[in-house]
C-alpha cells in the first residue's frame, strides 16, 4: 500500500467519523427540539450539574432524562444530591455575589422554586420550544412567564399497611385518630401535605386558607395526641419497612417505592381530599452563556414525551405532556390523576400563597408538634 493511498484512507476514515458524529448530533438535537444549525450552537461544556433527590428519584431522572440527554449531545450529566433546601442558600449567595452558581439545573419543589423566582435568581425559560406541547400543569401558578417549568404533579396520599386496617381501607384522615394507631403514624416534619386536608378534616373550608386555618390547627393538635413520627421522604420508606409505622401522609412515590421493596402497602385519597402539588426544573442566573444554553436544552429535553414517559414511569407520577401511558400498577389509581373527575378530589393551592405563609404555618405546626 502506497503512502498516498494510506493518507487517503485516513482522511476518508476521519471524514466518515466526522460525518457520523454530525449526523448523530443532528439526530439527537432534533430529539431535543433544537432548531438552530449545528455551527451556531455554543460550545458544549464537558458536563452539566443537575441537583436531584437521591434514591429512586435520581435513578428515574437518570434513566429518563439524563442518559438520553448525554446520548444526544455528548454532554455528561452529574447529579448533585445536595438537599433542595440546602442548595437554595448556596445558589442565592452565588447570584448575590455574582459568582457562577454551583449547579446548572435545579430539580426542586415548585413551592421552593417559587421563592427563588420571587427573589429573582431564576432564568426565564419561556423560549423553550417544547413548552408548546405541554399541558397547563407546566405553567407555575401566580408567577409571570416561566421562571420554573413544572414537570409533573404528585399527591400526598394516605399510605397505610392493610394488615393494620382489618375492616378495610381508611376513608378519612380522621381514621388516623384511632387509638390503636397511637405512635404508629407519620407526617412530614414541616407538616407539608397535611395542612390543607387537615383544614377540611377539622371542619373548615379551603376558601378560608390562608385567612382562617384554625380548623387545621385544631385537627393537627388532635393528631399530635397520636404521637406521630415526623420525617422526610426517605424516612417514610424506611419506617414502613422497619415496621415503625402503619400509616402516613406522604407522596405516593415513597409508598410505591416501599411496596416495590416487598412491603405490604396501599394508599388512598381520603374523602376530605389530598394535596396535589408539582415539582419543576429551573436554572439559576449567572451561568456562562454557553452553559445556560445547554442547561436550557436539558430542561427542553425533559419535556419531550419520550423522556417524560421513562422518568415518570420510575416515579409513578403524571407528567405535563399529553398522551403519556400510566405505569400498569397505577392505572385508575387516585395518586395518578389524569381525568377532571380525579382532580376533583385533590386540593391545589397556589405556590405564591404557600410561600407567603410557609414560615407562619411552619412555626404553628412546630409549636403544636414540639409542645
Amino acid at each position, binding site marked *: 500500500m502506497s503512502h498516498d493511498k494510506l493518507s487517503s484512507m485516513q482522511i476518508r476514515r476521519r471524514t466518515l467519523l466526522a460525518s457520523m458524529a454530525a449526523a448523530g448530533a443532528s439526530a439527537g438535537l432534533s430529539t431535543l427540539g433544537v432548531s438552530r444549525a449545528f455551527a451556531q450552537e455554543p460550545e458544549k461544556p464537558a458536563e452539566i450539574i443537575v441537583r436531584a433527590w437521591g434514591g429512586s428519584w435520581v435513578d428515574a431522572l437518570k434513566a429518563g432524562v439524563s442518559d438520553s440527554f448525554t446520548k444526544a449531545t455528548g454532554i455528561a450529566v452529574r447529579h448533585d444530591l445536595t438537599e433542595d433546601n440546602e442548595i437554595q*442558600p448556596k445558589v442565592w449567595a452565588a447570584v448575590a455575589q455574582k459568582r457562577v452558581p454551583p449547579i446548572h439545573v435545579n430539580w426542586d419543589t415548585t413551592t421552593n422554586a417559587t421563592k427563588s423566582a420571587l427573589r429573582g435568581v431564576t432564568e426565564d425559560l419561556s423560549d423553550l420550544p417544547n413548552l408548546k406541547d405541554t399541558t397547563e400543569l407546566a405553567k407555575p401558578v401566580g408567577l409571570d412567564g416561566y421562571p420554573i417549568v413544572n414537570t409533573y404533579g404528585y399527591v400526598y396520599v394516605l399510605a397505610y399497611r392493610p394488615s393494620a386496617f382489618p375492616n378495610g381501607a381508611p376513608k378519612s384522615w380522621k381514621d388516623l385518630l384511632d387509638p390503636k394507631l397511637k405512635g404508629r403514624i407519620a407526617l412530614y416534619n414541616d407538616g407539608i401535605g397535611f395542612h390543607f386536608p387537615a383544614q377540611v378534616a377539622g371542619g373548615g373550608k379551603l376558601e378560608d386558607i390562608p385567612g382562617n386555618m384554625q380548623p387545621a390547627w385544631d385537627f393537627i393538635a388532635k393528631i399530635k395526641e397520636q404521637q406521630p413520627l415526623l420525617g422526610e421522604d426517605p424516612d417514610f420508606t424506611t419506617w414502613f419497612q422497619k415496621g415503625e409505622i402503619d400509616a402516613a401522609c406522604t407522596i405516593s412515590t415513597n409508598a410505591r417505592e416501599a411496596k416495590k421493596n416487598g412491603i405490604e402497602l396501599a394508599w388512598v385519597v381520603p374523602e376530605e381530599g389530598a394535596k396535589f402539588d408539582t415539582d419543576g426544573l429551573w436554572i439559576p442566573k449567572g451561568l456562562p452563556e454557553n452553559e445556560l444554553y445547554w442547561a436550557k436544552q436539558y430542561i427542553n429535553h425533559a419535556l419531550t414525551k419520550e423522556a417524560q414517559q421513562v422518568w415518570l414511569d420510575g416515579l409513578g407520577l403524571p407528567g405535563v405532556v399529553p398522551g403519556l401511558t400510566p405505569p400498569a400498577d397505577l392505572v385508575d389509581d387516585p395518586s395518578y390523576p389524569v381525568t377532571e373527575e380525579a382532580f376533583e378530589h385533590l386540593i391545589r393551592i397556589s405556590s405564591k400563597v404557600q*410561600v407567603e405563609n410557609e414560615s407562619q404555618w411552619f412555626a404553628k405546626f412546630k409549636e403544636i408538634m414540639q409542645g
Partner: protein
Amino acid sequence: MRTPRAAYPVTWRVMDMLERLAAAVWPSSFQRGLPYLMLLPAVVLVGLLVLGLVQIGDTSLRVLDTNTFLMSEDYTLANYQRVLTENFFATVAGRSLMGSLIVTAITLLFAFPYAYLMVRTPSSALRKFLLVALFLPFFIGQVVRAYGWLIILGNQGMVNEALGLVGVPPMRLLYNYPAVLFGLVQYMLPFAVLMLAPALTAIPNELEAAAASLGAGWVRTFRHVVLPLSRPGLVGAGLVVVTLSLTDFAIPAILGGGTQDFIANAIYDQFFRTSDQGLGATLSLMLVAVGSILVGVVFMLFGAGTLAMGETRK
C-alpha cells in the same frame, strides 16, 4: 593558612547564614514578642469568627420579605420579639437546656469511674482495653453512631428481638426524649473521660494510701480526698459536655423522630426550610448567649477547672 574544608562543613556555613538572616529579620530585642507572634494565627481565626458573629448580628436585625425573599433594608427587633414570645422557641430552648444539664450529670456519673479505673488500674492490659474502647467511638462519626442506635433500638432491632424471646411485645424505644438523651450520653462519654483522666492522674496515689492508713474507708477517701481533688477535671469535663450537648444537631434530629428538636435544629429549619435567615441568625445569637452565660456561671461558681491551665487550681 587556609582552613581545611572538612573542618568547617558547608552545612555549618548554611546554618550560619540562616542564623544571620534570622537575626536580621527577628533581632534578639524582639524575643519577647515571639509568644505573641505564635498566638497570631489563633487570634486571626477567632477574629474571623467574631466577624462572622457581627454579620450574624446584622442579619438578626432584618426581617424576611416574603414578596421578594430578600432581607429588609431597615433594622428591627421583630425577630428577637418572636423568639422571646412564641411558645415554640421557649419549648425548644427549655428542652435543649434541660437536656444538656441532664446529659452532663449522667455523663459525669458514668465517666468518673471509667476514668478512675483507667488511670489507677495496675493491669496494663485492662488500661489498654479501656483506652481502645474509649478511642474507638472517635473513629465512628456521630451520625453513623446515631444510625447504629436506630438499628439496635428499632421496633425490629436487636433489643426488641431479644425482648421478644422472653415474650415481651415490641416497644417504642426510639423517637422520644429519653432516646435523645441516651444518644447524647453515649456520644459525650469519651469527651468526659478524656477531660477527667489528667485530673485524676494528677492526684498522687500516696494521698489515698495516707487516708486509708488513717482509717478512712474507700467511700470516705473518695468523698474527702479524690472527689475534691478531681474537681478541676469534673468542671472541665462538665463544661465541654454541657456546651456540646446544648448545641448538638444530629442526635436530636435522628433519634428524636422529628418531635424532639434542640435549638440547633430550630436554627437549621429557619436557615434551610423557611429561608428566614434573620430569624435563624437571631436564634444563633441567642444560643451563643445562653451557652456563654451558662459557662460564665460555672466559671464564677467553680472556676475553669482543667481548662484554666496557667492558674492555680482552686
